[in-house]
């Protein structure tokens, strides 16, 4: 029976493995030890979310207008070089950005937020620019031919049609952001990194996992939230989530 359906076999095995894991964690006292850090987790998770929201929020408010500006004909000449500069920015390792930020701004939350902000700009700006550039020329010609001004065209045609791509950029940027926040601990920014790095230093795996598991869960939740916002705000006619082709 089980062998006839590979899918069932898979779920069945997964269930058994999960149960055994549960038995093992309980038996080895993992759960008790994990719950010992409950207070730390809530406090540090709050800090973590705060770092993410501030840096991510700033990055979105900065990067979307930058992407829009670069897509304007006025900036056509500088747009591609500017994108290259941002691309190079993205290739610098996260830790290096944090170090640079620290040398500029000292230690604490501010340099951490600044470094995260810098790191989050690129995917959003790039997708905004690319999304607007991808609006077909004939659509813009139709808009112009009907007498829309450049601003009307931007808000009624270009942005609504680019919105899904822009959201894709925000999704990438925020998941990178959530994953990078633990490093903020290294320059005194706080967050779940405190549990992770301390756990590594003290050779306490459970302490480390108490930081790592909530970080991973947060990344998944943030991605789902952004996806939900995209689902609700992107106009229905250009929303692939609503009408899968």
């Amino acid at each position, binding site marked *: 029976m089980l062998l006839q359906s590979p899918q069932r076999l898979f779920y069945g095995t997964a269930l058994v493995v999960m149960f055994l894991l549960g038995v093992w964690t309980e038996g080895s006292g993992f759960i008790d030890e994990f719950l010992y850090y409950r207070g730390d987790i809530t406090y540090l998770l709050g800090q973590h979310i705060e770092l993410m929201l501030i840096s991510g929020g700033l990055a979105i408010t900065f990067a979307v207008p930058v992407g829009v500006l670069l897509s304007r004909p006025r900036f056509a000449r500088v747009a591609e070089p500017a994108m290259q500069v941002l691309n190079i920015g993205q290739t610098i390792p996260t830790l290096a950005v944090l170090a640079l930020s620290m040398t500029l701004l000292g230690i604490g939350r501010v340099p951490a937020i600044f470094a995260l902000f810098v790191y989050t700009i690129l995917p959003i700006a790039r997708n905004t620019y690319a999304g607007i550039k991808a609006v*077909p020329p*004939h*659509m813009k*010609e*139709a*808009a*112009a*031919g*009907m*007498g*829309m*001004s450049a601003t*009307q065209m931007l808000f*009624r*045609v270009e942005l*609504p*049609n680019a*919105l899904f791509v822009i959201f894709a950029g925000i999704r990438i940027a925020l998941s990178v952001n959530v994953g990078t926040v633990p490093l903020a601990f290294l320059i005194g920014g706080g967050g779940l990194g405190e549990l992770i790095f301390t756990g590594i230093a003290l050779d306490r795996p459970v302490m480390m996992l108490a930081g790592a598991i909530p970080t991973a869960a947060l990344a998944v939740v943030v991605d789902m939230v952004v996806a939900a916002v995209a689902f609700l705000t992107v*106009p*229905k*006619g*250009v929303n692939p989530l609503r*009408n899968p082709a």
Partner: protein
Amino acid sequence: MIRIENLTKVFETPEGPVTAADHITMDVPDGEICILLGPSGCGKTTTLKMINRIIEPTSGRVSINDEDTTGMNTTDLRRSIGYVIQQIGLFPNMTIEENISVVPRLLGWDRKRTRERARELLDMVALDPSAFMGRYPGELSGGQQQRVGVIRALAADPPVLLMDEPFGAIDPINRAVIQDEFLRMQSELNKTILFVSHDIDEAIKMGDRIAIFRAGRLVQYDRPDDLLAHPKNDFVESFFGEDRALKRMQLARVRDVMEDDVPVVRHDDDLRRALELMDERGYHYAITLVNEHHQPVGMVMRSTAETRRGKCGEHYYGVDALAHLDDDLRKVASLMFSHDTTWLACVDEDGRLAGTLTQRGITRYLGATYRPQE
């Protein structure tokens, strides 16, 4: 009326200046469709786009209803001109209603009026408003999308319409349907239309006037029949091709060419009466037989009338092909070939005999190329 005077566009390219339109001068009278026709790169699209200044003219003037548009604000000018493009350019982020309402909303119409206008226009192209208003362009077929593209251009009731190969991307069957639909709409709306096409048959079918372009110059600007009958030079002649005479046949309707004073016989007439009538008119072949409603049902052959005795109703051949008053001659010729006949009875909407058409009559009509110029 659209008056175009010395309209010129010179593009600066790395290989030097290229003249895309060279001193184009033409008038399009109110309520007429003027087709800009020519091979690609001939300047027809450039000329069209200079009228709503999608392309800025290098020199020359365009006046619409005696108003020079040169000094007008570009957005105001464009809102007063309907614009349809080949790629349709519906906005996929907007519903059909929102798409149709773009220009009315730019002009500040109130909600109710805009909505009513959208309904009215959808009705006009036989798309059910209750079903289509809330749909998105992606949910419509190509033909439906282009219908919406056309009515969107008509939304604010502009006097002038610019159409850039509007039906070029539609399959041939749907294209013919949309062309007919558009002509029917135009007969009520009487817009002044400039229409770019590279399809000669479309131009002949749709155009009140045709402007032939070549290498940035306007070569000939005339009514279709005059163009076909009197091509100005070798280029125009070869552009329309060897089958010009056949193309002209599309322009003539049965009602203009048929002979309407024709003798008929009825079922109970004697064959001798049929012979008499044929002699009177000099018919060598046959005479039409009609029923009590004056509908043609057959023909009595001369050979039968000469050799037999009796009533016409006992000695006739049935007719299996009829021409209608609004058919064009090309269709009639096709009917004649497929039924192996040189003669067709022409009927009105009620199927009553209105006249007859012969192959010789068609030839004579096409041969009469001279028409007094206006």
